[in-house]
């Protein structure tokens, strides 16, 4: 009998080709070591609660009440839950017939989408249409859905920044399209030179690729930078001229740790640029409850907002969303709470504010500890908290080749074995040939940061001494 359908050789090639480093080799090795009893500091993925960040109290109160609505009838509920949490729970339960246990509208609960639209309007100063906002099980799902709509044939290309968050490369691989890289300039705060962009697209087209979309990750992952307003304008103009749909991954919009380049949404800049471009450029923007100071990764909550996408296309995107029936309802409520936060005067406002500020300020401090820590290490440069460049000596590169590993993978594995710090090698995100990075996160507890950085410095400087 011939081989079976799910024998390795008979699998969909696109599945085999796709790679997702964030939970790849380093993570698996780290998990092995953890099982053996070694203390591991997981900094491979932006997973704040796993590293001790506490959930914000108010949303958890609201969701607990939504989970157990019979509590609302109990006369003693006020002993455990503040009145505004009770009111919010009632509000959200009223928005979806059947509460948390019923499939909602496939685009997400209409009332929540209105709240998200209002949030966007307050942020940008331009109105947003709830009909063009779809809630999703995490931003990742939304990104995959949109890419699936765009990629038709292997020659359909998507411009993706290098370095990038490997969801993009994995998804493009999976759907059988072409990734067209454009390089960010490390020495210019990971900014964009528009000429590099033109070169990338020109090269791709010469190779027969139909470039259809451009991804920007702003603020950047793994790079951590915010694009300047000028860069955003250039990108928007470029997409308009080259007939590309712009995909703006803005999940880190609330994680800004420097004041030089504040966050501006692609949509705001687009509308600032006025007609005709503001009415014609196709844009999809993504956001999440997993990042910011909420860090609610485990809820799987996110949304995408479509701008200038024709109604028939929106219908098709809706149709695909309807096959999975609906995004999970609890996460939709988290998104509503994020979009429509407590106000001054609300009972829980002070606590919520204090918790939020506390997290953000701590993140900022940790970002600086990490940046300064890395930059004080031998051969470690350009650190903007979490994606430092490691200048590996040729002998280290040779040693890596001998064990058949990429040089940065070799370095990161050695770092892991020596210190328990689990990072992701830069090759997982893409980098210029011969230039190496690692990605970590600023999420370990603040009190642990100094020792983590000194641990890293000790390992790094010894490694460099050894191989130089």
């Amino acid at each position, binding site marked *: 009998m011939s081989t079976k359908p799910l024998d390795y050789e008979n699998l969909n090639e696109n599945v085999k080709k796709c790679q997702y480093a*964030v939970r790849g080799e380093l993570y698996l090795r780290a998990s092995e070591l953890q099982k053996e009893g070694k203390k591991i500091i997981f900094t491979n993925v932006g997973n704040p609660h796993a590293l001790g960040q506490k959930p914000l109290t108010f949303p*958890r109160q609201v969701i607990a009440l939504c*989970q157990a609505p019979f509590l609302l009838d109990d006369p003693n509920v006020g002993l455990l839950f503040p009145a505004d949490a009770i009111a919010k729970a009632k509000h959200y339960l009223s928005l979806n017939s059947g509460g948390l246990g019923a499939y909602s509208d496939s685009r997400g609960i209409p009332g929540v989408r209105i709240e998200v639209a209002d949030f966007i309007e307050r942020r940008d100063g331009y109105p947003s249409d709830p009909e063009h906002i779809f809630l999703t099980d995490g931003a990742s799902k939304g990104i995959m859905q949109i890419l699936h709509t765009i990629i038709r044939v292997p020659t359909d290309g998507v411009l993706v920044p290098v370095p990038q968050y490997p969801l993009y490369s994995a998804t493009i691989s*999976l759907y059988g399209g072409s990734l067209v890289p454009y390089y960010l300039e490390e020495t210019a705060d990971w900014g964009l030179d528009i000429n590099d962009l033109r070169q990338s697209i020109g090269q791709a087209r010469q190779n027969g690729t139909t470039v259809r979309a451009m991804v920007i990750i702003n603020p950047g992952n793994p790079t951590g930078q915010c694009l300047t307003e000028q860069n955003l304008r250039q990108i928007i103009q470029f997409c308009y001229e080259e007939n590309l749909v712009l995909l703006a991954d803005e999940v880190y919009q609330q994680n800004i740790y420097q004041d030089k380049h504040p966050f501006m949404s692609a949509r705001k800049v687009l509308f600032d640029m006025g007609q005709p471009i503001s009415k014609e450029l196709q844009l999809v923007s993504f956001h999440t409850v997993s990042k910011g100071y909420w860090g609610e*990764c*485990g809820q799987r909550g996110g949304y995408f907002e479509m701008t200038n996408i024709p109604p028939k296309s929106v219908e*098709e995107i809706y149709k695909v969303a309807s*096959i999975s*029936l609906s995004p999970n309802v609890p996460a939709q409520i988290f998104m509503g709470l994020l979009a429509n936060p407590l106000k001054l005067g609300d009972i829980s406002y002070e606590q919520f504010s204090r918790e939020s500020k506390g997290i953000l300020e701590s993140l900022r401090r940790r970002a600086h500890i990490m940046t300064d820590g890395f930059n004080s290490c031998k051969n470690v440069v350009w650190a903007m908290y979490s994606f430092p460049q490691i200048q590996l000596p040729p002998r280290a590169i040779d040693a890596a080749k001998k064990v058949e590993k990429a040089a940065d993978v070799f370095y990161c594995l050695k770092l892991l074995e020596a210190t328990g710090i689990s990072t992701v090698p830069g090759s997982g995100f893409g980098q210029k040939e011969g230039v190496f990075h690692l990605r970590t996160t600023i999420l370990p507890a603040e009190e642990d940061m100094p020792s983590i950085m000194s641990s890293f410095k000790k390992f790094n400087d010894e490694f460099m001494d050894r191989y130089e």
Partner: protein
Amino acid sequence: MRRFVSHKARNLITKTSTISSTICSSSTISPLNSLSPAAAALRFLSTLHPHSMDSITIDTINPKVLKCEYAVRGEIVTIAQKLQQDLKDNPGSHPFDEILYCNIGNPQSLAQQPITFFREVLALCDHPSILDKSETQGLFSADAIERAFQILDQIPGRATGAYSHSQGIKGLRDTIASGIEARDGFPADPNDLFLTDGASPAVHMMMQLLIRSENDGILCPIPQYPLYSASIALHGGTLVPYYLDEQTGWGLEISELEHQLNTAKSNGIDVRALVVINPGNPTGQVLGEANQREIVEFCKKEGLVLLADEVYQENVYVPDKKFHSFKKITRSMGYGEKDISLVSFQSVSKGFYGECGKRGGYMEITGFSPEVREQIYKLASVNLCSNISGQILASLVMSPPKVGDESYESFSAEKEAVLSSLARRAQALQDALNSLEGVTCNRAEGAMYLFPRINLPDKAIKAAEEAKTAPDAFYAKLLLNATGIVVVPGSGFRQVPGTWHFRCTILPQEEKIPAIVSRLTEFHKKFMDEFCG
């Protein structure tokens, strides 16, 4: 008009991609003037008028997206929502005062109550800081508090807001594996489990893995739950239909499987898997054990992956049938990992818990090599993990309160109330449908649906053709407009050509059933009077 345009678009896209691939295969760069006239024209046009071919229009969208359909939330529901808005804006504008959604298996949207114990545990896991408070003991049952502690201990750092292992939290998988073992009497390995946001994403994952090109086929029952047809279309494969036999209570005949398999093969289709939905959706039948053994033998013989959709495993209403998982059946036949590849799907959305909005579920994969498992893991990891609350719920569903637990009695009472009510409603609607002229309805042995067959008179079929609608959609639309009752036309599930059905859920509240029955009966009589003459 839209179909015509998209057909044209597809042709255009095919032509364009053929041109592109010609360019790709040549080793030199092709400047504009060396392209074929059509390609050159396209390039020229696109530089002249970039916005005449906007990136995401109906003409340039992925054709697989265009191709797929999902009737459960399709056209009829859109019409129903418009009518609902009408009633709101303009009460009395229609001969009914409410829309009765019988289109979707969404029990809690129709007032089915959640299982208290499950919700208690979930609430405590969502807000663990109240676990230590004394007031909590006054508001929650002791065993819910205990279970919440147990679950939180299995979650690193008790962090329910953190991404988990991509297969789902290990401790919860252990619980589910024990639950599977208790159900079947055969061991289950937690490493075989992938917890997902409902069963649907797990189905998509398998389709992704199995379908390489349109020459790959998946055997699906007709009628089928349209997730399968939609997913196969989205991933670019071919649905190979096998017809369930309405005359024998939607029987699954091996001879039919063999016939369809051979036909597909002779058409150059490489058939890779067999989907079985048990209990059936929309058909509601529960397979007999002997039948299940035949299916297992067939898959083993033909080297097919068996995809067992078992989301309705806790919805069986007839005393003469019982649910047996395909895992149990294969193991009881002495078949193990080396004999057959089996994927079993379960969900928290159905049963007596009906927690659709939570998006919880899992697939259990057995009979796959380590290399393939790695690939499945990799696919799961791209989305990082499924939502934690749904994972917790899946573990509760597979490991509910036991005799002796404080909540056991109330849990049992709630479970019994839901299941017996579902059985009663199934019977009432079934009887009503069978009493209608020209309508036959097989019994709902399980699941949540009735799938009656309507013998539509020729006059009705002609009227449907003139209205450019499928005859069963024509009937369903008239039904909706006259009564406010929303059903899904049978063509959304596929059916033997020339037969017409609709799917109606058994979920409306029990007190609404008599009104539904009388309105439906009245409508049907008028319909037959009008179209039989």
